């Protein structure tokens, strides 16, 4: 790919993150969609064109690689580079989630802003 990919700069989109996480176990390309759907109880679904594009991009970024190939059945697996990128991404997302959880734990019902103005 001629253009600079976002993946090298440490930015993984949601789809790339999910696909990369699915490939910590060697997997056929076409099985990833059903795998993600199963793991998220059908809440997260990925379209085939998105999946194919993401697989190509991740391969180009050297985050995943082909480990076996027989007539239309390609098996992908995460590389060491991909693994470290995934760990960084998981950390980042955990911090985001932790902040969100902390923020929502302080949330109180009612028109708080009126009290803030009064005090």
């Amino acid at each position, binding site marked *: 790919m001629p253009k600079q990919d*976002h993946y090298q700069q440490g*930015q993984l*989109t*949601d*789809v790339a993150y999910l696909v990369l996480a699915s490939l910590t176990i060697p997997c*056929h*390309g*076409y*099985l990833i*969609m*059903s795998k993600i759907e199963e793991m998220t109880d059908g809440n997260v*679904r*990925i*379209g*085939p*064109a*998105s*999946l*194919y*594009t*993401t*697989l*190509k991009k991740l391969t180009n970024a050297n985050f995943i690689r082909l480990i076996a190939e027989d*007539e*239309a*059945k*390609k098996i992908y697996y995460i590389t060491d580079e991909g693994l470290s990128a995934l760990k960084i991404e998981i950390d980042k997302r955990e911090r985001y989630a932790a902040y969100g959880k902390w923020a929502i734990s302080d949330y109180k019902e009612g028109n708080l802003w009126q009290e803030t103005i009064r005090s």
Partner: protein
Amino acid sequence: MARDNKELDSLEYKYKKRRRMAVYKFLASALVLIVFFYLAWLLPRSLPRNLFSGLAGVTIVFLFFKVASILQNSWRIVKHGKSYPQYIYEIGNGLAFFENKDMKMCEEMAAIGYLLTNVTTLGFYKFERALPQECSYSVDISDIKYDAEEFSEYLKIFEGGGWEYICSSGSIHWFRGSKGAVPIYTDNASLALKYEKMRKLSLWCVISGILVAIAFFALSRIFPYPVSLMFLFAMGTGIGLALAMSVGVILNHRLIMRLKKLQNHH
């Protein structure tokens, strides 16, 4: 095959609607033609005059298409407004501009019992008689052509997502899925890439249109008057193609920009 009145109505209604639209477009383009001829007649013998003669040429071609459409739809209403042909050919709206319109047309055809079987290079959609059904259609533009090695892998992924492969035209592929299937694109980053490919294809059409126009303009200069008119018409066709496709480039470019803005929060 069981026929009920609702289906019968829908085919005939469709043709009548199409004929009505063709008549409107015919009248509108006739008006445009008069304007172009008037401008060409007004101007002295110069380059703009040639340009307007060329544009008049395009409009005449367009008028011919509309007359053909009116005749075709009238014939269809008489011939099989009340019966079902095995195959129906439909003209697309232009994939670079109205992709959703094309997909919607295919879905409507499926609902009245015609399934898409092929799309020819000139943009004709071929439908075959089948049981009426609800389904959705999608088109993908990919790096890989239908005869490439990775194509079977590509198809396998689409099959896994519940999308049945129909046909290809170069690197453009058509798919059919059930009504509630997951859309083929679920993220904006990949979708932007698709429209970048579409923009590239449209840009090639613009370039080739300009090249055709230049070539025919040169030929019109070489040949004497009555013959040169023919080349000017051909030049107009090239200009028309370039103009139309540049609209396609702009539309796709705007779509890409919007999609990129949406994905910026990542």
